[in-house]
């Protein structure tokens, strides 16, 4: 038998290893092309963000930049030159690689997007007319953009539960859900409180809580914002208004000292909801449930007319009476100023100026809401949005800061007989009756309450949405709110009421708007607010007259209500209001 010998050189040559990635053209960065445009991004950037940086938008449902990658919606599939077998790759999961060419507009990708939408809509109910998401729904947007073909379905749709109450603030419609699992990932990753999961399989999969356990996290409302479709809706906003009638103003939550940035959605002179507005430095894009509902006092139980004693009087008459009382007590040295840290910086500046120059006061008593719950995420124990601002104002005007209970003691001892309260919030309910013992109690209140009920003279004040203003949060960060609608009823912002009282006391009022006030008095606190500019919100002049529709809105949606005019109860424009309250644009 011939010995089989393998010649040493007969071994088949090993296949050449695949060529490695080319050396980076921009050291430290990744350079690649997307739809023919060259993009240079940091290593590890996913394709959705990389495409957005060069103006190419890739559609997606499940991707959320603050959540982990699920890649389950299949909407973001793109063509990549390095994909094995020309397979389409999810752009949310794939990171940019050197020299790769990405196509988001090829026929293959377009067909995939169309097909994905067709599948997503297979079991979707015909709910647009009754769905709260209608008008801000990604299914509607992407259907028109990427599908726009008629239904081919000729079998019945899967029927699921239409109204599953997951928690106090969140209702689930299982039929509308596309199972992107953003809500599940938010609860487990951001909240570390995995109260949501996916039950069952296939087309019977549903989002669910564990049996018998509600979704009771204190940040549960965020899943409503995260939901790209109408599956999760807010029990608070549900069926209260169609979103296309709402307009948005850039505002702040005034529920605690954090000052979460929000869009305040309003119609006419009513607030309908808060939506968190992105600010990486403050609240990222979340807010707590309690803050989400903290707009309610803007609508309900408002003080809208001035009162002297128990009778309603015109505001001018009440202001004159208030000035008379304040002057009398100031002359005797028995007057005190109680200021609320719920009021804006402008409100407090005006009050402090009138107190010091008009009434010769040297102390400021601080009211405000009592402390509440807190956590290490967003919520602060201090429920007052502007305590830091009040401290700045007191310092700037040389007013000594004292507590509301000091004031109650001073009233009880007879040292203080007249109180001027700018804001009626009190840290303890018992203080109201203690202060009510003062001979003269001038209260500027936004809402009815114990102190308002005890007032000798009650002046109607406007809360945050009805004026431009500044709030300083617990970190000393000054943030703007913007006027959403004109003050309701006879009310005026605190700064307006303070200015009227000051005028009655013989001071010269120099402000027709919050902007003018800030330009005038804001200098006194400017060194404490580094980097803050009144105009930090872009395009604040957009509210002049009829908004041209082509100009767009602050949040990029179509405008809802087109007029920003002060309206009375019957919907007529109150022209007399305009010159004094309308902001002058420089």
């Amino acid at each position, binding site marked *: 038998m011939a010995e089989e010998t393998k010649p040493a050189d007969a071994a088949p040559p090993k296949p050449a290893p695949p060529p490695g990635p080319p050396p980076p053209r921009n050291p430290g960065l990744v350079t690649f092309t997307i739809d023919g445009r060259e993009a240079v991004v940091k290593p590890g950037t996913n394709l959705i963000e990389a495409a957005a940086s060069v103006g190419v938008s890739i559609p997606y449902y499940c991707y959320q930049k603050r959540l982990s990658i699920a890649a389950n919606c299949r909407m973001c599939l793109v063509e990549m030159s390095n994909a094995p077998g020309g397979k389409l790759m999810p752009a949310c999961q794939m990171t940019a690689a050197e020299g790769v060419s990405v196509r988001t507009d090829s026929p293959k990708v377009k067909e995939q997007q169309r097909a994905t939408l067709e599948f997503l*809509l297979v079991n*979707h*109910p*015909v*709910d*647009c*007319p009754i769905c709260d998401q*209608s*008008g801000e729904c990604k*299914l*509607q*947007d992407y*259907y*028109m953009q990427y*599908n*726009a*073909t*008629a*239904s081919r*379905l000729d079998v019945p749709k899967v029927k699921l539960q239409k109204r599953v109450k997951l928690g106090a603030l969140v209702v689930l419609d299982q039929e509308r859900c596309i199972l992107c699992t953003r809500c599940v990932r938010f609860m487990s990753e951001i909240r570390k409180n995995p109260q949501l999961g996916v039950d069952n399989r296939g087309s019977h999969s549903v989002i669910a809580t564990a049996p018998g356990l509600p979704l009771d996290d204190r940040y549960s409302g965020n899943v409503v914002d995260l939901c790209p479709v109408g599956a999760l809706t807010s029990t608070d906003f549900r069926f209260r208004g169609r979103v*296309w009638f709402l307009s948005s103003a850039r505002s702040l939550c005034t529920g605690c000292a954090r000052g979460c940035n929000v869009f305040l959605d309003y119609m006419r002179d009513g607030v309908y909801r808060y939506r968190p507005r992105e600010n990486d430095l403050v609240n990222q894009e979340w807010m707590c449930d309690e803050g989400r509902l903290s707009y309610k006092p803007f609508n309900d139980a408002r003080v809208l007319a001035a009162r002297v004693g128990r009778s309603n009087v015109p505001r001018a008459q009440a202001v004159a009476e208030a000035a008379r009382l304040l002057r009398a007590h100031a002359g005797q040295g028995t007057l005190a100023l109680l200021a609320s840290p719920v009021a804006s910086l402008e409100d407090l500046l005006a009050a402090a100026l009138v107190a010091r120059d008009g009434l010769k006061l040297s102390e400021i008593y601080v009211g405000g809401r009592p402390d509440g719950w807190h956590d290490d995420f967003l919520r602060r124990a201090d429920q007052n949005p502007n305590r830091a601002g009040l401290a700045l104002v007191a310092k700037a005007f040389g007013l000594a800061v004292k507590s509301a209970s000091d004031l109650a003691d001073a009233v009880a001892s007879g040292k203080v007989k007249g109180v001027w309260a700018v804001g009626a919030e009190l840290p303890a309910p018992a203080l109201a009756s203690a202060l009510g013992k003062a001979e003269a109690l001038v209260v500027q209140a936004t809402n009815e309450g114990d102190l308002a009920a005890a007032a000798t003279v009650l002046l109607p004040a406007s809360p945050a949405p009805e004026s431009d203003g500044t709030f300083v949060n617990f970190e000393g960060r000054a943030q703007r709110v913007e006027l959403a609608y004109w003050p309701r009823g006879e009310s005026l912002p605190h700064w307006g009421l303070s200015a009227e009282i000051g005028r009655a006391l013989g001071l010269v009022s120099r402000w027709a708007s919050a902007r003018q006030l800030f330009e005038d008095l804001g200098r006194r606190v400017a060194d404490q607010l580094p980097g803050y500019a009144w105009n930090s919100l872009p395009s604040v002049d957009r509210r002049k007259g009829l908004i*041209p*529709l*082509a100009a767009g809105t602050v949040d990029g949606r*179509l405008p809802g209500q087109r007029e920003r005019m002060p309206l009375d109860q019957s919907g007529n424009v109150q022209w007399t209001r305009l010159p004094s309250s309308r902001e002058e644009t420089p």
Partner: protein
Amino acid sequence: MSKATETAVHPVPAAASPLDAPFPTKRMLVNLGPSHPAMHGTVRAVVELDGEAVHAMKLDIGFLHRGFEKSCENVTWTQVFPYTDRLNYVSSIMNNVGYALAVEKLAGLQVPERAQYLRVITSELHRMCDHLTLISAMGLELGAMTVLIYGMEARDLIWDRLTELCGARLTSNYARVGGVSRDVPPGWNEKVLRILDRTEALRVEIDRLLTRNRIVIDRTRGTGVVSREDAIDYGFTGPCLRASGVSYDVRKASPYLVYDRLDFDVPVGSNGDNFDRYLMRMEEMKQSDRIVRQCFDQMQPGAIAADDSRYVLPPKPEVYGSIEGAMAHFKIIMEGIKVPAGEAYAYVEAANGELGFYAVSDGSGRPYKLGVRAPGWNMLMALPQMMEGKLLADLIPTFDTINMIGGEVEQ
């Protein structure tokens, strides 16, 4: 009108005999309109008269200005249609069609054949309405009241048919981007053919009343003359241009819809006077009649709007029965159709001439800019030059035959 103050009183020429002594006259300023029965629509002409001759003339327009172009920027592409009705309100469908063609050009949208035929039929019916109105009014103002009665009978017969089709006599709002709003009701074609017969009879009657009428000929022949060169320089289009001897008709020069499949003639005049302009209209009505009859022969059953839910509302069963239809309906109604960014000019042969729409889109649901070339504008602007040195009495038939329509000129 500064000339008037310079020479308030004419120098008295030396007379051959005392009997020939001319009467020294002042120039007189006469306001014709804005609410004068012979000033159609609402337009004011300030005429400086030297005796009976027009020494100078100024037009004061704008009484019907509505800010059409600007208003269109504030509504969705589809909501513009009712606004176009108010341009030349006597023949609104031609405005609808012109605008629809501009948007379809931007969108690159193919319109089904039946919709194209329906657009042609309704356009031509409206052309007849427009010409009937002109001729009736001219007859009335030249003293032939009967013509108005006949003309209005014919016009109302047509308008009744159009009412059956689109629900309105005047503001038809019939065309849509991608097609037309509705198909013809049952038996409509036959009805139209019957009223075409009656209209023809009335047209013949009017023809016999006017065309060889001594008074009409005296008032219109050789008056309001515009030469071929002037007509081109002024930018005349339509019957007024053709009356001056230029054979230009958009339907032939740049056929749109299905006009290239239809057999019709374009009448061309030679004198450019009021009489020729009148004759153009009489002949064009005959041609419109021919076109409508041919369309009925050629038209096949089929879709009346493009099958593309990006631009055309889906049928109602789909809207109520499928989520796809509901979404398309919602998005089109709430945000408007998303016309691709770009600009386009589309033009049609309207009753008065070339009606052009220049549309600019930024890709959103509303026009970024919309411009209109109103055919009546050029004729109206030429009127003072046409009338200089002519008799005041000639102003009336001239104003008639240039057919100024306030709605389109003043937008």
